[in-house]
């Protein structure tokens, strides 16, 4: 299995990272991001140590001030003596696979603080607002002991709700005057917000936008089951155990991230949520996250087995039969699963 190969190197890196060696931590994150055997072994070592950090997702449209708010929130946490890990995701080019990761521009004032660790990630073709391994990277930062892990998504539109499954608490940023009340009642991003922040609070209309959001978002009916977040995260695999309770009316705050106005109040709200969730390690969001992680690994491992030398030929033939419409995709999936069972 992939696990055994990387164990020695991973143990060395994990021990160094736990002692505070930032280069070792950086190299673990690279291994996790590249899905190497070392990365898998390191994650296995760190997972039992994780689960203590408050993982906060920050999402919102391009230019709404996510990176600036993350920097301001980091400053506020540091003033309280708390350590901060940041995962900042920017899009990869669908054409070349390249990426321009520019979130650090707003965060560089924290670059030399040993209790802040900022890591940029390219989304690498993943469409939900995060990179495929962002959740795992957050778990690594959690496992080595950061108090708070901020996960900043790519600039999102209306439906990139994946971060809600990856985070304990989700902040959705809006800029003033970004739309009328109908925008606020559309399904999607705002539905998964635990906290809505109207940033650029020094612009005209910020308070009015916040007022509209408050008025419209309390109107969300409190239905206790099913949610876009759970379905988005698990590809529909969320059963009764995997459901995330629909957030009831999110708090709506106004910040000006460039000056720090409103940021202490935002941290206070985050801390209140964290305290309320304190005994909630088994809370619904974390169950959803765990289920999504495990199902994704199950899928990857089954595929790896089906593409291993012993089965590759049969698997390829089955896929070809579907391409030629000699076999339907459901029958093909059943055939592949049966070939795994026969092994």
């Amino acid at each position, binding site marked *: 299995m992939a696990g055994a190969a990387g164990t020695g190197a991973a143990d060395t890196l994990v021990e160094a990272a736990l002692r505070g060696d930032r280069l070792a931590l950086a190299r673990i994150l690279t291994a996790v*991001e590249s899905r*190497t055997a070392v990365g898998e072994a390191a994650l296995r070592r760190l997972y039992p140590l994780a689960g203590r950090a408050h993982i906060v997702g920050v999402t919102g449209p391009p230019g709404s001030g996510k990176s600036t708010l993350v920097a301001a929130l980091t400053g506020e946490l540091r003033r309280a003596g708390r350590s901060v890990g940041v995962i900042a995701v920017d899009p990869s080019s669908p054409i070349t696979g*390249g990426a*321009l990761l520019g979130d650090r521009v707003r965060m560089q004032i924290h*670059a*030399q603080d040993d209790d802040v660790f900022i890591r940029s990630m390219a989304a690498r073709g993943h469409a939900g607002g995060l990179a495929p391994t962002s959740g795992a990277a957050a778990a690594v930062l959690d496992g080595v002991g950061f108090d708070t892990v901020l996960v900043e998504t790519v600039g999102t539109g209306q439906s990139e709700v994946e971060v809600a499954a990856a985070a304990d608490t989700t902040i959705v940023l809006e800029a003033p005057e970004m739309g009328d009340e109908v925008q606020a009642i559309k399904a999607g991003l705002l539905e998964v917000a635990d906290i809505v922040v109207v940033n650029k609070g020094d612009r005209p209309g910020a308070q009015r936008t916040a007022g509209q959001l408050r008025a419209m978002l309390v109107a969300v009916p409190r239905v206790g089951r099913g949610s876009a977040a759970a379905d988005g995260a698990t590809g529909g695999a969320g059963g009764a155990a995997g459901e995330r309770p629909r957030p009831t009316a999110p708090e709506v705050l106004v910040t000006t991230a460039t000056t720090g106005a409103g940021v202490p109040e935002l941290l206070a709200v985050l801390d209140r949520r964290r305290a309320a969730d304190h005994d909630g390690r088994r809370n619904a969001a974390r169950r959803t996250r765990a289920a999504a992680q495990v199902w994704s690994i199950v899928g990857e491992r089954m595929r790896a087995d089906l593409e291993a030398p012993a089965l590759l030929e049969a698997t390829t033939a089955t896929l070809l039969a579907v391409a030629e419409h000699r076999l339907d995709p459901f029958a093909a999936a059943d055939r592949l699963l049966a070939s795994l069972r026969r092994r």
Partner: protein
Amino acid sequence: MTERPIKVLIAKPGLDGHDRGAKVLARGLRDEGFEVVYTGLRQTPEMVAAAALQEDVDVVGLSILSGAHMTLVPRVCRLLRERKMDDVLVVTGGIVPDDDVPALKAEGVAAVFGPGTTIIEVADFLRANARPRR
């Protein structure tokens, strides 16, 4: 597992505010399939080294047009070595007199790209010389 993309930090150490070249290169390398971290203007060598470490980049590209390269570039190279990042490729661009190039190379700079260098030349050099990526 396919080889991961080469990760490059493009940094502007020092006080000059001319970052058009750095941005054009960052964008160009993006189009060449690199993952490019851009950190913005007025970085100290310490900030550059810290960002390179946290991001675990394969390449550090320093853009300097102020004439302070003989101070700033060796300092970045030394900080990277102190942090055990000897395997990181350091290249510079901007305005560097030919006479200074040997001294910079002695400090560990792999290449100095002057005006007129094409993006393709830079990309090919980085592909040929960046550390192996597991």
